[in-house]
């Protein structure tokens, strides 16, 4: 098993003909993901890569091809609209890779998705991968391997670093979820923790956080109360100065809140082991898996 997406997931790609969309759709298909449709308004009736029918709307892709998940690669200006369109069309899972979406747009889009009952991952994220089953997004397929570790992260390349370190020592993953680096996102740490908790194939969970906001602190308290599986944490940004946006829109220490120090302390107070360096992660996971 895996969480959120597996070999039964039927993907529609919004923005399939764009530069990023077309490149990553091919990568997803090569990985074995069932990409059943694409959407680019105005290009309905065409075919992508001689295999994937293109539609003018997500609604048509769902109706004609039975898509039940969407991956979004459209430019920031249209991305919040694309999220709402996907939610309105009845897909269960929406993965939004696009970055740079205005936060005021995301306030409405996340609310719209919640009202529709769909799950949104992202935006501004690498998406997710369930090794050996499905890849929805841009996480490189060659660095993952099937196994018992669930990975949740606010980052992209830092996640790859940690996942690759796990894979190299033979610790495969059940699913890896990049929840995104924006201040307002769909699925959060707690949603993923709960899903991994109920997934029989996940035995340990890796949580990669960073400065800004209170999601890690809330996750730490939730782990203590509700999660029986072992969790190992990491927090990036111990040397980040306050008040500066460190690349990700959400990675900013506001006043005195959202520091790495505060997050690490909250993890430790709640019994979550924290790796000092990414390279320490496999050892810690090995310890909690065996102990």
């Amino acid at each position, binding site marked *: 098993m895996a969480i959120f997406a597996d070999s039964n997931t039927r993907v529609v790609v919004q923005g399939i003909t764009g530069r*990023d969309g077309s490149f990553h759709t091919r990568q997803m298909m090569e990985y074995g993901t069932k990409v059943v449709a694409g959407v680019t308004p105005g290009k309905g009736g065409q075919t992508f890569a001689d295999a994937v029918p293109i539609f003018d709307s997500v609604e048509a892709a769902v109706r004609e091809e039975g898509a039940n998940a969407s991956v979004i690669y459209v430019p*920031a*200006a249209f991305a919040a609209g694309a999220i709402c369109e996907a939610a309105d069309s009845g897909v269960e899972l929406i993965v939004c890779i696009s970055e*740079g*979406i*205005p*936060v*005021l747009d*995301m*306030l*409405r889009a*996340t*609310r719209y998705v919640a009202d529709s009952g769909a799950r949104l991952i992202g935006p501004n994220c*690498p998406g997710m991968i369930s090794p050996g089953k499905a890849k929805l997004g*841009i*996480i*490189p397929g060659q*660095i993952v391997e099937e196994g018992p570790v669930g990975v949740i*992260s*606010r*980052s*992209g*390349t*830092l*996640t*790859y*670093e940690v996942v*690759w370190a796990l894979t190299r020592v033979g610790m495969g993953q059940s699913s890896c979820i990049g929840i995104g*680096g924006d*201040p*307002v996102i769909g699925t959060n740490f707690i949603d993923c923790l709960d899903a991994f908790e109920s997934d029989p194939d996940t035995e340990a969970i890796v949580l*990669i956080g*960073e*400065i800004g*906001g*209170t*999601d890690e602190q*809330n996750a730490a308290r939730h782990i203590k109360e509700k999660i029986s599986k072992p969790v190992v944490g*990491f927090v*990036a*940004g*111990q*040397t*980040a*100065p306050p008040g*500066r*946006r*460190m*690349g*990700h*829109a*959400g*990675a900013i220490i506001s*006043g*005195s809140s959202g520091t*790495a120090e505060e997050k690490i302390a909250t993890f430790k107070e709640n019994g979550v082991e924290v790796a*000092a*360096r*990414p*390279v320490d992660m496999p050892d810690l996971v090995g310890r909690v898996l065996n102990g």
Partner: protein
Amino acid sequence: MNIHEYQAREIFRQHGMPVPPGEVATTPEEAEKIAKTLGTGVVVKAQVHAGGRGKAGGVKLAATPAEAREAAGKILGMQIKGLTVTKVLVSPVEEIEHEAYVGAIVDRANGAVVLMASPEGGIDIEEVAAKTPELIFKETVDPRYGLLPHQASRLAYKLYAGDPGRARQAADIITKLYASMLGAGASLLEINPLITTKSGELKAIDAKMNIDDNELFRRTTIAELRDVEAEAPEEVKARAQGLTYIKLDGNVGCCVNGAGLAMATMDLVKYYGGEPANFLDIGGSSSPEKVVTAIEIITSDAAVQSILFNIFGGITRCDDVANGIVEATKEIELKVPITIRLTGTNEDEAVKILEDAGFSAMTDMDEAVQKAVELAKN
């Protein structure tokens, strides 16, 4: 993006907020002229992107135009938290009866805008939150419906209970604050203090506004408010190339793909006893040109004793980065050692490109960071 107080006041004014008159001056003579036109005692305030202006001596009262010139002369050119003051706001002195606070922020945890108000204005709101949290009142705005009239009224009556005259003014101000937020694409706005004058009038005499950078593509007039003089020139140059650069105080220059990995790399530099000189994210799909700019920016910092590249190739191709490094070092003579770590997409090609050009490449992040830290000490 931060904007200056005088710019935030202008946005408030456009939304009908009661903001006192005042203009910005870049020379003492201009300040004198503005004070003369206003015809009252004035306050001269430094316009910099830093808090604690008052404590730093960046806010001065002046009873006459001559005093305004003198005050501006002292403030202009002054350094506040490392930033040089190039502009002052000259505004009438107000007779203050009471100071309150009103603000609006995007509350990440709730995924909603939260409006806040406190009768304890004039001081840092974080301090009020820490000491007397019961004196901060909040209303969460449902993004589907926007701010509802009763929410503005409820906050206003908490601020000025038993004083309908002031409460009605406050409800109007709170409504306009929310409208300003939507109008400017702000992620944070504060009026601190919102004053009551001797005659019972409310006025917004200080304004703070942060604009969501992601809004700028569709708000050209707001984007033009960016004061590049108030930013480090390297940061401006980096942004123009689609890079994110933030200067820090250390001597190990870092160049990384991805924000999370860039932060983790800085942390590792510190872990191994060094100090990072900067945060630099070259982003996803990296062209060699971006890498050239990155090296130009890092080497323009005289404090840098050692350069560290840390690349995890996914979408970023390691050979692109390698080509960029080779290209850049043809144009710029490196005076400090460079340590290159890359792994992932097209790693083998990258290693060959680098070795042909006389560089060596590493694949282990920790080893590379340790080496870069050691080299910075020599």
